[in-house]
């Protein structure tokens, strides 16, 4: 019984780490530009499919993964430059509509380029391990590790470094930020680069286990968004914890209730959070105000 519980927890944590990386990207753009990026999950799929094609074309796995992440990071910045930054009086609602358009565009391009069938990236190096009856897939360790390094790195960057803090100031006080010499343009580009990077990483670490498909990004993005809402859309910490909780909850529901309800968990959590605790899991609001 305990073994099952732990087995489900391990699977939930690794799935949750993919949601967490997406949530981190969403919060990065929200805190700086108040943009909700609906295309975040599609960027993840784009990275996965891009890496699959490169590996099929003979590029070593590690290089393919790096190129895919860089490519998606650049794509995210291009989206910011070509679309987001062109809009005067950008409200969050406008950003949702804009990025929804981008999401549809990316999906259509992926469908044309890679077809409708899901593609698998080779598993990263390493072997599956078994601890007291709990089997842990090597790829799951990669997923958790990616969250630890990338998610943790981004969190530290925003919360501990001067530049990171300054970036967040732009969202709160754009005029004041400009007066003290922080360029909102740079802040925005950096935020979208970080979002693209985190999205790309989540896409490539998930592709060996969950496959990459043109259409899967939207639901994945939604799960990341739910986690971000758990973080009140401002707290990286709370969002990461929220994402891990969401992943684990999904596994418990699938294991102890019914596999068919798994995707409903995110929606239920979203509704409950919005009704009961719209500020998310954030305990102090001080983190927002820099």
């Amino acid at each position, binding site marked *: 019984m305990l073994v*099952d519980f732990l*087995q*489900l927890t*391990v*699977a939930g944590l690794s*799935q949750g780490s993919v949601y967490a990386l997406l949530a981190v990207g969403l919060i990065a753009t929200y805190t700086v530009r*108040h943009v*909700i990026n*609906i295309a975040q999950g599609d960027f993840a799929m784009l990275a996965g499919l891009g890496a699959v094609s490169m590996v099929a074309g003979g590029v070593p796995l590690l290089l393919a993964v790096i190129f895919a992440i860089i490519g998606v990071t650049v794509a995210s910045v291009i989206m910011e430059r070509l679309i987001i930054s062109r809009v005067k009086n950008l409200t*969050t*609602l406008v950003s*949702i*509509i804009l990025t*929804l358009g981008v*999401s*549809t565009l990316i*999906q*259509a391009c992926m*469908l*044309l380029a890679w*077809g*409708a*069938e*899901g*593609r*698998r990236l080779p598993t990263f190096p390493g072997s*599956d391990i078994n601890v007291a009856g709990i*089997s842990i*897939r090597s790829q799951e360790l990669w997923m958790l590790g990616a969250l630890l390094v990338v998610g943790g790195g981004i969190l530290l960057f925003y919360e501990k470094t001067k530049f990171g803090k300054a970036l967040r100031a732009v969202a709160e006080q754009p005029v004041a930020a400009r007066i003290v010499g922080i360029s909102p343009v740079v802040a925005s580009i950096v935020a979208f680069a970080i979002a693209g990077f985190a999205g790309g990483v989540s896409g490539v670490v998930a592709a060996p*286990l*969950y*496959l990459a*498909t*043109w*259409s*899967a990004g*939207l*639901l994945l*993005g*939604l799960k990341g*968004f739910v986690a971000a*809402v758990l973080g*009140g*859309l*401002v707290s990286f910490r709370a969002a990461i914890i929220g994402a891990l909780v969401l992943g684990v909850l999904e*596994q418990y529901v*699938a*294991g102890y209730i*019914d*596999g*068919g309800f*798994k*995707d409903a968990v995110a929606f239920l959590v*979203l509704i409950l959070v*919005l009704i009961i605790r*719209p*500020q*998310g899991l954030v305990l102090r*609001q001080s983190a*927002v105000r820099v």
Partner: protein
Amino acid sequence: MARSHRRIMPVALAAAAALTLTACGGGGNFGGDDDTGGDGEAEEGPIVIGAVLDITGVGANLGVPEQNTLQMLADQLNAEGGINGREVELIIKDNQSTEDGAARATTELIQNDDVDLIIGASRTGPSLAMRPIVESEQIPNISIAANAAIVEGSDWVFKTAQNDVVVIQSIIDNMAEKGYKTVALARDATGFGEGIAEMITEVGAEQGIELIATESFEPSATDFTAQMTNIRNAEADANIIWGITPSAGLAQAAYVQLGIDAPVYQSHGVANDAFFEAAGDAADGVLAPMGRLLVADQLPDDDPQLPVIDQFVADYTEEFGTPPSSFAGHAYDAWKIAVIALEEAGTDADALRDAIENVSGFVGISGVFEMSPENHSGLDSSALIMAEAGDGRWNLAE
């Protein structure tokens, strides 16, 4: 604090609404030809065949090769002069692997394109959604999905994939031979898996095999740890995973990764190379009843299906660069049966329906078809072989 609430609440709601809207809307229609209207004249002008396939969404591994096959066969047929001198126009619609998409596409094909016959859908759920429409409009429909419920008691619906109950019979027989007494099942939560547990219980009872646990999974699922953990706990002599690729393949991978060593049987829903893409090395040793297409190179030389299969594999591979899957074969059989009946009866709906019912001895990719008023599926257990996965392909077992 309060200010923050006010800001986040509408934003979150709006984003959620946007996501939900697109989730429901899905992608566009990227499959097949443009909707050029049919002629509408009863017995002259082009013959219009509609197809409703799961080209995008969870059924893509099925629908894409089916689309390829139908397009290829239509081009071949028209190059040879069509049917009795009449050109054949093929209109393919993508149902996005959804029931409502299939119903909508069927209605459009009948009302806007005036089709004479409809092929599809690829999966059981969408196929069942089409059934009441073709029945009330009285348009012959040849499904390429598996569940026997698609054709049971229907005057207008036929199907070419082997019936699920025949597949289960074949699995249970194999289990009985090996002396297994208990079995656990992980099944597709949609139409394809509907009623499978009941069938296993019923067929198994005759051989003294008991179904002791049932789990279900969505075909869109990517993680199967939960279901497979429960299957592991059931400790059955053997397990059945009943689904289509890629989900059934990912489930197989999770099964092996959780260290379950009981033998696995899968359905004919994994009769393609995509299974190996999803399952990887975990595929080795899986047994699955399926048609002869994927093991054609291991068949005895005098197998009556061999010439048909070889020709199809050669044509398809030349056109698309990859060998066809069993699903491509189901589409091939549906198309050929349609052509045989159209040659015989023309486009009058009643005559066409009767002609399909009378198709007998047609040697197809999935078997030799014997349609009748009582049997709209046309295949029995002789259409199946037991295949075993090994070295990244399906092989004839034993």
